[in-house]
């Protein structure tokens, strides 16, 4: 088996606010293998965005702090990397697409300047012109990035004319070379009129267009891992569908390792290979998307799926989960879902259940492929 690109082990993140602390993420363990898309789904406030921002250490510290755990990225524990060295990991190592495309582009610079900046960062690191990050178990050297392994997982098929190899050969590139490459990326994200768009300012673009630019910017650094933090949530429904189609196409084309965060089950179902369901800072169910959707083994997942509106449902009724998301400064003891759980037993109120393998419904799957943090997973299918 290959090494995972990202291996999160027992990660806990808390925010200190005044005298109180609240646990945004507790004891999360997650592996992302090369070329796989892992989706994280959960309600607003469940800690999924905190998790996404903690991986490239983008969350403000303080008030946020990583209490325990490791974030192993290509053999280096990012938790131990000093904050001043994190920029060397960002961009080319870990790329990110944000939720708010409207404000995520710098209003003072043209599209060309913003994308070319990303390309130059990668270019300079490839050439070894910029100091590269060394640390952790394995050296992290951009100048000798392998061309076939994990590091270039995103390289395949991105640039049609083989500009990647050319980039390493030519130490000095002219503005027109850069312009050509930027245009390639704009075409990659299906922008119809790249020659015009390239010279525009962000305020002259629509929301969907800006999100495409953001995607192009992230991809142009050819990151080993891409984190998409609700990339479609802030867009109109029709634009959402377009960007989602683009993301799906790119995932197929580029063979990327992606962590896809969304509150929308439908989005995750369409894009991800594996799904992790988060509730109150914990991953409570994990498994292949089809498996989890077909036979959920945690009452929360089951109820979340039932609550998801489906257009074709005949009775037209909307379901909701009774109760409220718990206050994370004083989470309920035991299983955090027990106050809202229809099958809660006394033990659920005392000990938090571990994320343990459950027998998969599809016999072709590995026995530990599907995991659930419930003491009574066998009772879940019986729920309405």
């Amino acid at each position, binding site marked *: 088996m290959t090494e995972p690109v990202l291996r999160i082990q027992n990660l806990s993140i808390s*925010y200190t*606010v*005044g*005298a*109180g602390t*609240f646990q*945004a993420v507790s004891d999360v363990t997650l592996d992302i293998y090369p070329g796989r898309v892992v989706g994280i789904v*959960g309600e*607003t*406030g*469940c*800690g*999924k*965005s*905190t*998790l996404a*921002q903690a991986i490239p250490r*983008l*969350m*403000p510290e303080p*008030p*946020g702090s990583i209490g325990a755990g490791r974030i192993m990225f290509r053999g280096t524990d990012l938790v131990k990397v000093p904050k001043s060295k994190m920029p060397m990991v960002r961009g080319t190592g870990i790329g990110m697409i944000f*939720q708010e495309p409207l404000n995520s582009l710098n209003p003072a610079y043209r599209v060309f300047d913003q994308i070319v900046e990303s390309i130059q960062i990668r270019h300079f690191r490839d050439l070894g012109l910029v100091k590269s990050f060394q640390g952790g178990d394995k050296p992290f050297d951009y100048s000798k990035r392998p061309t076939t392994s994990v590091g270039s997982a995103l390289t395949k098929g991105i640039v049609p004319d083989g500009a990647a190899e050319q980039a390493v050969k030519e130490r000095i590139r002219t503005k027109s070379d850069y312009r050509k490459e930027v245009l390639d990326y704009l075409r990659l994200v299906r922008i119809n009129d790249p020659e015009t768009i390239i010279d525009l300012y962000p305020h002259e673009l629509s929301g969907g267009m800006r999100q495409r630019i953001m995607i192009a910017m992230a991809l142009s650094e050819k990151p080993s891992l891409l984190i998409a933090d609700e990339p479609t949530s802030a867009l109109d429904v029709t634009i959402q569908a377009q960007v989602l189609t683009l993301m799906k196409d790119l995932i197929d084309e580029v063979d990327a390792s992606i962590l896809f965060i969304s509150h929308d089950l439908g989005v995750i179902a369409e894009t991800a290979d594996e799904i992790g369901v*988060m509730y109150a800072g914990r991953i409570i169910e994990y498994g292949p998307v089809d498996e989890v959707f077909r036979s959920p083994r945690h009452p929360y997942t089951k109820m979340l799926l039932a609550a998801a509106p489906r257009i074709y449902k005949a009775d037209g009724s909307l379901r909701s989960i009774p109760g409220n*998301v718990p*206050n*994370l*400064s*004083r989470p309920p003891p035991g299983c955090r879902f027990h106050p809202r759980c229809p099958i809660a037993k006394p033990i659920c109120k005392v000990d938090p259940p571990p994320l343990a393998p459950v027998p998969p419904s599809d016999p072709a799957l590995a026995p530990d492929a599907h995991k659930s943090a419930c003491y009574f997973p066998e009772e879940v299918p019986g729920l309405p």
Partner: protein
Amino acid sequence: MAATPPRAPAQFRESLGTFWRVLRANPLSFLGFLMVAIICLTALIILVAPHLLVPYGPQVNTGSYSRGPSWKHLFGTDGNGFDIYSNVMLALPLDLGIGVGIAGAALLAGGGLGLIAGFYDRPGTFGAAVSLTIMRLTDIFLSFPSLILALAITRALGIGVWETVFAIGLTWWPFYVRLVRGEVLAIKHLPYVTAARAAGVRENRILLRHVVRNLLEPIIVYFTLDIGTVLVTYSTIGFIGVASKYPGPQPEWGAMLAYYQGGGLINTYPWEVFAPGLAIFITVLAFSLLGDGLRDILDPRTRRAFVRSTASHDPPPETPALPSAGGGAAPGAVAAPFDPGGLG
């Protein structure tokens, strides 16, 4: 800039508590607050009962000439045998009063004109013509550096404290017109005012109530800082020698400094120059520290952040996205600087 309903007394007490907490969390502004309080108290004592703090009169020959600072003469004496400490202290109420007085008068005059110019902006009406005249006049006044114009006016009117006060006041009001008018216009286009207008509530009534509430914060900040600026301007005119005469029955810091510095003996008797200079420096610094900190404190965004980081009660689990104030570059339209980032 969220719509806040009028405050009940309990809410007012709570916000006073918030103010106090925030002041404590911001050591520099707290220092400024303390200094301002002490300076005002001192000025009051000197006005009411000068003998408590001032051992000598303004033109009393103490019999010791050009002596350095000692316990008997805290800031030393000058060549006339005057006690410099006494003269510096006696100048405090005048200088402070000038600062507060001019800034206050400018606030009232400029603020009133600003309200008019902000309220009546519908084109084609008589009010709009008045507003336009006010704004054009303001633009012209703002073109003059206050000091220069005030100097020229003082010169034309004749030397004296009141002439100088009048001259500075004449140049000072336009800043407040700009400030108040800008604020009124910004509030006019806030969603809740539009909503109230749509509901048929008389616009000026809502406006006046909200304008007063929203104006309080920027005005307090600006006014506090302004007291210092007026003081420096006045004492500069005093230094140039167009405002007050020193030595005289009523000392003034700028004139004192000019007199002692003019003697050319600053190297020999530095305390003569430093004492009034330090007095101005400390007074202005006190108001600047307070005013500069107040900006951070009264700004709703930072206030929220401060309260969150000092309060002991539970934080809100969600950081709500602040609504943009419609006016484009409205300064209140961004998230708090200590926002812990989208919490999921």
